[in-house]
């Protein structure tokens, strides 16, 4: 009975070849196993550690560089503070030359004053503010300026007009003269010399 059952059951089994447990086979197995274990630890333990070390080293390097750059900037700011303290009594001169507001009444008063001083008649004065688009914040510009366009017309003798131009050129505020036109017009029985000047004045723009 048992013999018959064994015979029937044997067809469900495959006879595997016998693995020889020789020394060579065992050596190959252990060597391969060692390599696999090393690879496993390399992937899951060594690699994250090494990558973290590399990232931290890179971060330290970057931050050291940033620190050096900032230190350089701090040194320059300290030096600039010294220079500012030394020249603080003269800063008003810079504000006069390049004000932080348009201050067009001062310009108008200035033209009027030099016209009186030079002995010429101020016949017309136009001041026009020029709006400028703000530069993108990415651009590190040192000074952004806005402008006032002006045109002035005066009449008088030639020496007086020449004196007017000389006084205009000696203005403390920075004025850029773009056009200077002399013209002669007949007035009653004499000729009148007219001077037309156009230019622009800059001031610091605050965004």
């Amino acid at each position, binding site marked *: 009975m048992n013999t018959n059952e064994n015979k029937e059951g044997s067809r469900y089994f495959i006879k595997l070849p016998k693995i020889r447990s020789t020394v060579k086979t065992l050596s190959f197995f252990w060597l391969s196993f060692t390599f696999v274990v090393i690879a496993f630890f390399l992937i899951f333990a060594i690699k994250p550690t090494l990558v973290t070390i590399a990232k931290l080293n890179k971060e330290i390097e970057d931050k050291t560089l940033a620190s050096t750059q900032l230190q*350089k900037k701090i040194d320059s700011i300290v030096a600039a503070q010294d220079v500012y303290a030394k020249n603080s009594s003269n800063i008003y001169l810079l504000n006069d030359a390049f004000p932080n507001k348009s201050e067009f009444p001062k310009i108008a008063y200035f033209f009027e004053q030099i016209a009186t001083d030079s002995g010429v008649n101020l016949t017309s004065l136009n001041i026009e503010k020029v709006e400028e688009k703000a530069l993108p914040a990415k651009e590190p510009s040192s000074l952004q300026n806005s402008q006032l366009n002006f045109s002035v017309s005066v009449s008088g003798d030639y020496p007086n007009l020449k004196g007017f131009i000389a006084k205009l050129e000696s203005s403390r505020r920075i004025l850029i003269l773009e056009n200077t036109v002399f013209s002669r017009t007949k007035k009653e029985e004499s000729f009148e010399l007219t001077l037309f000047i156009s230019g622009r004045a800059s001031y610091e723009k605050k965004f």
Partner: protein
Amino acid sequence: MKKNFSQVFLFLAVLTLTVTTLWIYLSVHRALNKSDKPILTPQETKVLSPILDDSVFEELKKRNI
């Protein structure tokens, strides 16, 4: 040439180890050279020049108006 199972397994293990080593090397190399966004903006790193030309003041003082 017929290789037995042990030799194939050893070959695969060595290949795995080699690929893993190479992968780690490349990962570390990438981590060392990968630059994220800079810590400081160009505006922050811009150094101001503290040099001031004193003659400008003298020139401006001469201009009375």
